[in-house]
């Protein structure tokens, strides 16, 4: 499955990268060079692999639904101009015109 110029430009668009036109051919060559080594995987029989890997070997542990202390460089209150009851207040969106007028 060789990578084409169109592939590189398409992927760059998906990845929000502005690739200079003069570099596209070089990138095509590089990606094809790397992906050629990946083709070794296609010959591996993985039909017996029942499920893909779950990285934590003992699953994801549960924790209590509570917050703990977090050492911060600056107080959380400095992150936004207005707070109330521990929450940041933000301007009301136009689509929320029916909501109670609680924002500044």
């Amino acid at each position: 499955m060789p990578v084409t110029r169109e592939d590189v430009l398409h992927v760059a668009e998906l990845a929000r990268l502005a690739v200079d036109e003069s570099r596209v051919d070089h990138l095509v060559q590089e990606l094809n060079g790397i992906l050629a080594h990946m083709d070794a995987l296609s010959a591996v029989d993985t039909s017996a692999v029942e499920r893909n890997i779950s990285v934590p070997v003992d699953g994801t542990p549960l924790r209590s639904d509570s917050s703990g202390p977090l050492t911060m460089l600056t107080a959380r209150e400095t992150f936004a101009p207005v707070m109330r009851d521990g929450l940041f207040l933000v301007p009301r969106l136009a689509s929320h015109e029916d909501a109670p007028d609680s924002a500044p």
Partner: protein
Amino acid sequence: MTIPDFARLSASALAAKVDGGNLSPVDTIDASLLRAKEAASGKDSLNLILWSDTDLARRDAASLVEVMARAGKGGRLAGIPLAVKDNIATLGLPTTCASKILAGYVSPYEATAITRLREAGAIVVAKTNMDEFAMGSSTENSAYGPARNPLDVRLVTGGSSGGSAGAVAAGIVPLALGSETGGSVRQPAAFCGVVGVKPTYGRVSRFGLVAFASSLDQIGPIARNVDDAAIAMEIISGPDPKDSTSSSHEVPAYRDEFMPLATSPAPLDGMTIGVPAEYFPESLDAGIRALCERSIDLLKSLGAKVVDVALPNTSLAIPVYYILAPAEASSNLARFDGVRYGPRSESAALRDMYAQTRSEGFGPEVTRRILLGTYVLSAGYYDAYYKKAQAVRALITRDFRDVFGAGIDALFTPTTPTTAFPIGAVTDPYEMYLSDIFTVTANLAGVPAMSIPIGRVGGRPVGGQILASHFCESTMFRVAYALEAALGGEAHQ
């Protein structure tokens, strides 16, 4: 007070002197800052450190003096200068991942591993150079220039935690933190002649570690000896509510388990150590092979039974890794778009601003991996690349489970296929990727692994790698400590 042997003392020895009142934390920090200044000066500047604040470090040392005066004692790492890889969040110092896209970024919070080390008395003195966003094996992919190996400035330090490994090797600090995704602690530790540990996935909280490939990333310590690495692991390991993938497995007192065996003539009695042939290919450097064989003979003399084992899917690890890691990176790095972090390129349209900021902010290797990762995740290629790689990853993991399930306690291999190479010598991306050929398997399988110095070839350090089953760091440390003691000074000859 000057500390004449500062560059050689272990963290535990230094901390004992501080705790005993023979040294002040101010002395240890000043010694570290002086050594850092020497290493950064002149035409042979090692370029190991990106960010440092001498005033902040001295203030932290003075604060520790007050804490110790009140408590009557210091922590286990009282007054120990700590160097931290630049992708681990610290308070008061930049965290840039050696990337222009995070230039000037200072994290508002710190990593859990840093908090735990500070609570034990360690003081952060420097953020260290690294491959940009940990993508590389030489610390040449830094926006701030390559790090140089303290043992020979013409050579790379290895990477991506090259600055941290180099800082320990150069005598700037006795202890540093790096991060692993495919060998980024063990490989530079091997190249610089120091000890590096990759914990079991989940053993150490990733909170505050800038994400590269979240299913592979782990923070790990780099030290001058196995004992210090074990101390650091005891401190930074354990569950953290801020990281849902951190494990609640009990953290043993590693030192208490291997120290009593120190005086035994056969400290590895009853253990079976496997040697996988796949890690000793014909192409392996002859000098590295000879040093590994010497270590294997020593392991036998220490009481271990050494047997041949097979990890048949090893050759597939590099292709698997270089599909999965870029795929995860392409997602993780999407957040760096000029809106929330770092400098922003001006552009009339929002999408153009994203693209321009990212293209100007990311270096060539990061750009290459984002493109590669986006490609293997894109419609039409997902099954052939990403899904297939996940399935083969399961086979690689099964290899390790089969070996450890058959009664093998630990594995011994070389850490790297070569010694440190000259700066600029490796230009082909895939050739550079092959530097990780013996290390990526542990990350893919999630098992713990570490590198210790086992000798030198042509003056260049060689690392021996010890791997164990999930959460069996105790076994790994026991083998590493015994081998280190048996090698003695020959580990650095």
